[in-house]
């Protein structure tokens, strides 16, 4: 049985985090998928006993730091998203590729809606529909990774 090393998980999270730190601007910033959350979802599906809600919360804090917003916003969004991911993780074996994509899209949307709620509570404006574009690009990125041969199901269940 193939075992996922803890270092691999953290290294991939670090790479995703650096992707967030890249100097995005303009329309690229509006389309930028949430790399960190995608990687977390991937590891939750693949190695749920190594990467869980705590990991998501911790990396969420770093994303908070990088965005310069109030501490805990991304941490909360990631916590709630990973909770849903963990709850449905076992059912995912039965999912087809398309179903999995819908599931990932829902997870990304949950994270964005949580963030939006927190932001509206702290007095920010409601942004237009373009706010949800990163979820779509995230799913596209997920599909691209699957097409390139990334195995998104739990290795031991094959």
């Amino acid at each position, binding site marked *: *049985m193939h075992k996922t090393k803890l270092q691999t998980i953290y290294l991939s999270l*670090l790479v995703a*985090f*650096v*992707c*967030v*730190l*890249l*100097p*995005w*601007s*303009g329309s690229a*910033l*509006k389309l930028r998928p949430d790399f960190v959350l995608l990687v977390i979802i991937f590891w939750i599906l693949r190695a*749920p*006993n190594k990467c*869980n*809600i*705590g990991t998501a*919360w911790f990396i*969420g*804090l*770093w994303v908070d*730091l*990088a*965005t*310069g*917003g*109030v*501490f*805990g*916003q991304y*941490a*909360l969004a990631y*916590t*709630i998203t990973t*909770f849903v991911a*963990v*709850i449905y993780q076992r059912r995912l074996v039965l999912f087809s590729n398309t179903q999995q994509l819908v599931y990932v899209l829902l997870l990304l949307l949950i994270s964005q809606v949580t963030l939006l709620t*927190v*932001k509206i509570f*702290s007095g*920010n*404006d409601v*942004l*237009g529909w373009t*706010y949800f574009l990163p979820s779509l690009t995230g799913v596209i990125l997920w599909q691209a990774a699957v097409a390139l041969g990334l195995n998104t199901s739990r290795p*031991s*269940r094959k």
Partner: protein
Amino acid sequence: MAGYHQNLDQQQAPAFFARGPSPLARLAFFSALSLTLMATDSRLQYLGTAREHLMVVLQPLQFIANAPSMLYDSTNEYFSTHHRLLNENQYLRKQALVQAISLQKMKTLTLENTNLRQLLAANQSLEEYSQLGEILHVGRDPFTKKIVVNRGSNHQVVDGAAVVDAKGIIGQVTRTYPASSEVTLITDKSLTIPIQIERNGLRAIAFGHGRDNTLDLPFLPANVDIKPGDKLVTSGIDGVYPKGLAVATVTDIQTSADSPFARIVCVPTGGIENHKQVLIVSISQPDSVANTSAASQRANNNDIAAKTTKPEASQALAGAAKTPTNKVPANAPVTNTPTAPAVQAAATSAPATSAEATQHKQPVVATEPSTSHKPHAQD
């Protein structure tokens, strides 16, 4: 079949026991933790230093992330064509010539201005202190309009410094880290900037609109004297932005029957999202910034009033201008001499208060001989 069972054991057993607390417990714990953090960070000021320290850890990662684009920029610059460089050189020469002429005029004007101000015994206008910064990256939060520049508290950048480019104001420093600082753009919803209409000197406050790179001028009556094309400049009464810098141009004015206020839309003059280099302007040296708020409280003291920014100084002196009229009848010979210079200074400091101050000044000077004689006569 046996193999299947063995496989099942291998995967199920760790999955059951290595999980620790249930997902629900984890959710509750970490959600509570995040909410506490949010409350602490937004209401209390404890996490500012923690943020600064963590930012130092983030610095190398940030450098790695910026490296590709910086490499691209530098190679691009290296391979830039001869023709383009010549064009740019020519343009810059022309610009330098034009600016040199206006700079020469400026020198004589500054000299003249300081002389006049000395003659009038007025406050010297404040020195500005500026430095060039480069934009590291645009803010990552889609809800706010921010940029991060590569000058921080190590380079004497202070919170509240104005940030300008060649065409006008683009924002204000809102958070400083050791080697970088966060600039909130004037189009951000939380940023306001005191402005003046260039054409008629009308003062107002511009608010960032937050979404489509525009500014609003709210709370102005529907019949206000503003036309599309009017230029907004900084009024300088806030002590943050230097006076007379371009801020925005009015593009649209809408009045509706159901609102007493006009809806005025302005487009910023500065290239909010275009440039790489910006200028960070502190209106005074970092150490004297802290003095201004304390100074307004002890307004009667002339020494401190001289250091304050203009609005505070004019308030202080307007206050000083009122005192002599009350005090004259009571103890005229003693207090008149020290307050008279204060009244003179008040007359010259601000155009709005000057008329009022001179009105006060006249009776003081006029009554001085008569009131000062009377007590002597009684003695």
